[in-house]
C-alpha cells in the first residue's frame, strides 16, 4: 500500500478522560476510552467499527473529527495531521469531514426550519453566496436524500424518525464532504426504515465517492455496508481486516464470540448451532484488566494472557490481530 493510497490514516490515537475526585477535584485516574489505536481507510471505502457499548467506538469517531481534543496521536487526512492545525486551518477541513449521529431527535435544532438546518453551514463556509442560492442547493440535497423539497419550511418535529435521519444526512452532505462518520446512524430506526437509510447511505457513497467510518454494534449491517472492519474491545482494536477476513477467517476469540452471539436469522439453525456465550460483563475502561484486556472473558486465556499485553500482529496483508493465541481457534 503506497502512502498516497491512505486517505484517512489514524496513528496511535489515544483519548483519556480524567476522573476527578477528592476535595480539590484533582485527577485521580483516567478512563482510557481509546487507547493507542491505528488504522487506515482508503478513499471511497467504508470501514466498519464494531464493538459493545463502552468500547470506545463513538469516542474514536468524535476524536478523529476533533470534536473532542485528543490526548495523543495523529489523524492524517490526505497526509495532513488535522490535530496539529490551527483553528482557522481546521475550519477548511471541517467542510470535508462530517458526522451523522445515532439519534435524529436530539441532533436537530427544534427551533430551526429544515432549510436553515441544512443550509446554515453552506452560508457560513461560503459555499453559497446568498440565500437564494442556498435554497436552491437545499432543494437539491433534499431531493437527493429522498425528502420532498416542498417540506423545506417545516420544523424537525413534523418529521418521522427516518425522515429526520434523512435530514441529518442531507445536512452532512451540504458541504460536499469526502469523509463521513456514521455513528450508529441506523440503530435508532425501525426495521423497515433502517433498510431505506442503509440503501441511501450506500447509494450516496457510490455516486459521490464518499468514504465512511461506519460505527455500529450491529454486525449484519456492518457486514452489508463495509469493505473493511475493525473490532474494538475496551479501547483497543483487537482485530482488523477486510470484510472477508473478519467474517470468514477471524482469528481473535472476541470476534468469534461477537459473531456467534449475533442471533441467527434462520429459526431452523438454533437447534444445532453451537453458540459461544461469553461469561461476565465488559470490564470498566477506568480499570482495565492487566495483560490482554480480554483475558477475563476469554475462553482461551492462559497465564501469559494475564500478564502480557499482546502486540498487534499482521497475519496476512491487511489482517491485524492482537492475541497471544492466534491459530488456536482454527484447530
Amino acid at each position, binding site marked *: 500500500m503506497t502512502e498516497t493510497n491512505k486517505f484517512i490514516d489514524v496513528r496511535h490515537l489515544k483519548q483519556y478522560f480524567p476522573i476527578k475526585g477528592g476535595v480539590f477535584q484533582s485527577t485521580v485516574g483516567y478512563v482510557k476510552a481509546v487507547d493507542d489505536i491505528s488504522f487506515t481507510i482508503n478513499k471511497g471505502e467504508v470501514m466498519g467499527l464494531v464493538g459493545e457499548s463502552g468500547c470506545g467506538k463513538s469516542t474514536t469517531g468524535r476524536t478523529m473529527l476533533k470534536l473532542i481534543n485528543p490526548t495523543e496521536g495523529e489523524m492524517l487526512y490526505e497526509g495532513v495531521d488535522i490535530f496539529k492545525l490551527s483553528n482557522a486551518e481546521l475550519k477548511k477541513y471541517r467542510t470535508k469531514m462530517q458526522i451523522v449521529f445515532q439519534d435524529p431527535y436530539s441532533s436537530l435544532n427544534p427551533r430551526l426550519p429544515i432549510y436553515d438546518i441544512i443550509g446554515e453551514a453552506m452560508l457560513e463556509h461560503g459555499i453559497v453566496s446568498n440565500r437564494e442560492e442556498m435554497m436552491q442547493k437545499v432543494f437539491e440535497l433534499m431531493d437527493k436524500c429522498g425528502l420532498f423539497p416542498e417540506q423545506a419550511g417545516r420544523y424537525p418535529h413534523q418529521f418521522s424518525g427516518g425522515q429526520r435521519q434523512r435530514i441529518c444526512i442531507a445536512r452532512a452532505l451540504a458541504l460536499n464532504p469526502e469523509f463521513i462518520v456514521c455513528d450508529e446512524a441506523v440503530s435508532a430506526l*425501525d426495521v*423497515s426504515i433502517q433498510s431505506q437509510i*442503509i440503501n441511501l447511505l450506500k447509494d450516496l457513497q457510490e455516486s459521490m465517492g464518499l468514504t465512511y467510518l461506519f460505527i455500529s454494534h450491529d454486525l449484519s449491517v456492518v457486514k452489508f455496508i463495509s469493505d473493511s472492519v475493525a473490532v474494538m474491545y475496551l479501547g483497543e482494536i483487537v482485530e482488523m481486516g477486510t470484510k472477508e477476513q473478519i467474517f470468514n477467517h477471524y482469528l481473535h476469540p472476541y470476534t468469534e464470540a*461477537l459473531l*456467534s*452471539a449475533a442471533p*441467527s*436469522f434462520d429459526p431452523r439453525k438454533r437447534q444445532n448451532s453451537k453458540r459461544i456465550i461469553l461469561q461476565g*460483563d465488559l470490564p470498566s475502561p477506568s480499570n482495565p484488566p492487566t495483560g490482554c484486556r480480554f483475558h477475563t472473558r476469554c475462553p482461551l486465556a492462559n497465564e501469559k494472557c494475564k500478564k502480557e499485553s499482546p502486540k498487534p500482529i499482521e497475519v496476512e496483508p491487511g489482517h491485524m490481530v492482537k492475541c497471544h493465541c492466534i491459530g488456536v481457534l482454527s484447530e
Partner: protein
Amino acid sequence: MSEMMEKKPLLEVKNLKTYFHSAGGLVKAVDDVSFDVYEGETLGIVGESGCGKSITCMSLARLVECPPGKYEGGEILFDGQDMLKISDAELRKIRGNKISYIFQEPMTSLNPVFKIGKQIEEVLRVHRNMSKEEAKKEAIHALDLVRIPNPERIVNEYPFALSGGMRQRVMIAMALACSPKLLVADEPTTALDVTIQAQVLDLMNDLKKEIDTSILFITHDLSVIAEMADRVMVMYAGKVVELADVNTIFEKPLHPYTIGLISSRPDMSTTSDRLNVIPGNVPDLSDLPTGCAFNPRCPYASDKCREGISELVEVEPNHFVRCYYPGGEKHDGN
C-alpha cells in the same frame, strides 16, 4: 403441530380493543386483536414502534393507565377468568404471581432505593405469605437460578451497583420468583449488548425448560424472534396481520408486510448489493389511512385494499393472514 393442537390454551385473547382518547383524536392502539398462548410455548410478537405490541401485552394484566386508555371491548381469558371483568383485588392476586412481566429497561423497572433482595422478597411475601427469613432464602435461590454469581452478596446490593445484563437477570429472577404461568417479556434484550443479549436469551431458553412457563416475547428484532419463538404474531398499526409458527413465518411469509420485513433485513449471509425496502413510513396511529393500514406502502394494494380491510383468514392450517392478496398473488384490476 399436532402436539400443539392437543395442548389447551393458557391465555385466550378475543377481539381485544384498547383505545386511547388523546387530544389528537382517538388512537386505536390495539384494534380487534385475538390470539391464544398455549401452555409451555413461546409466542413472539413482532412489529415496529407504535404497532401496538406493547399495549397488547400491558392490556393482559390491565396495566394500561385508564384514562387516557380505555378497554373498549373484547375478552382476555386467563386461567378461566376474564381479566377485563375481575375486580382489582382479584387482579392483584394474579399480577406478579401468575402473570409477570420483564420490561426493556431494567434500571427504570427496579426501585433504586431498595436492595435487590428486598425487591424480590416483596413479591414472595405478598403472594406466597412467606416469612422474612423464608423469603430471603427464596430470593437467594431465585438469583442463583438466573446464574448470578454470589447471590448471597447481591441480595444486599442496590440496583446501581449492577451492570445492565445483571439487572435484567434480577428482573427475570423477580418475575420468576412465584413460578408464573405466563411470563411477558417486552423487549427484554433490546437495551443490552450482543454478547449480553446472547447470555440472557440463552438463560431464558434454559429456564423455560426448567420451570415450564409460557412466554410472550415482544421484540422488533426478527433475529431474536427466530431464536426464541415457537409461533410468531406480526402486528401492524394495532392489528394482527399474520400469525403462524416460526419456520413458516421465515420461510413462507404471506402478508406483504411480513415479506417486506424479512427481506429488508441484512442477514449475515446477504450477498446482494442493495437491500429490499418497504417504501414509506410507519403510520401514525391517530391518522391511519382508510382500508388496510399498510396499503400506502404495499406493492400489491388495489382499490379493494383502500376501501376495506380483510379479516384474519386461515389460509393454511394454523397460518393466519389478514390480506386480500396473501403472498402478493395476482389480482385483476387496480
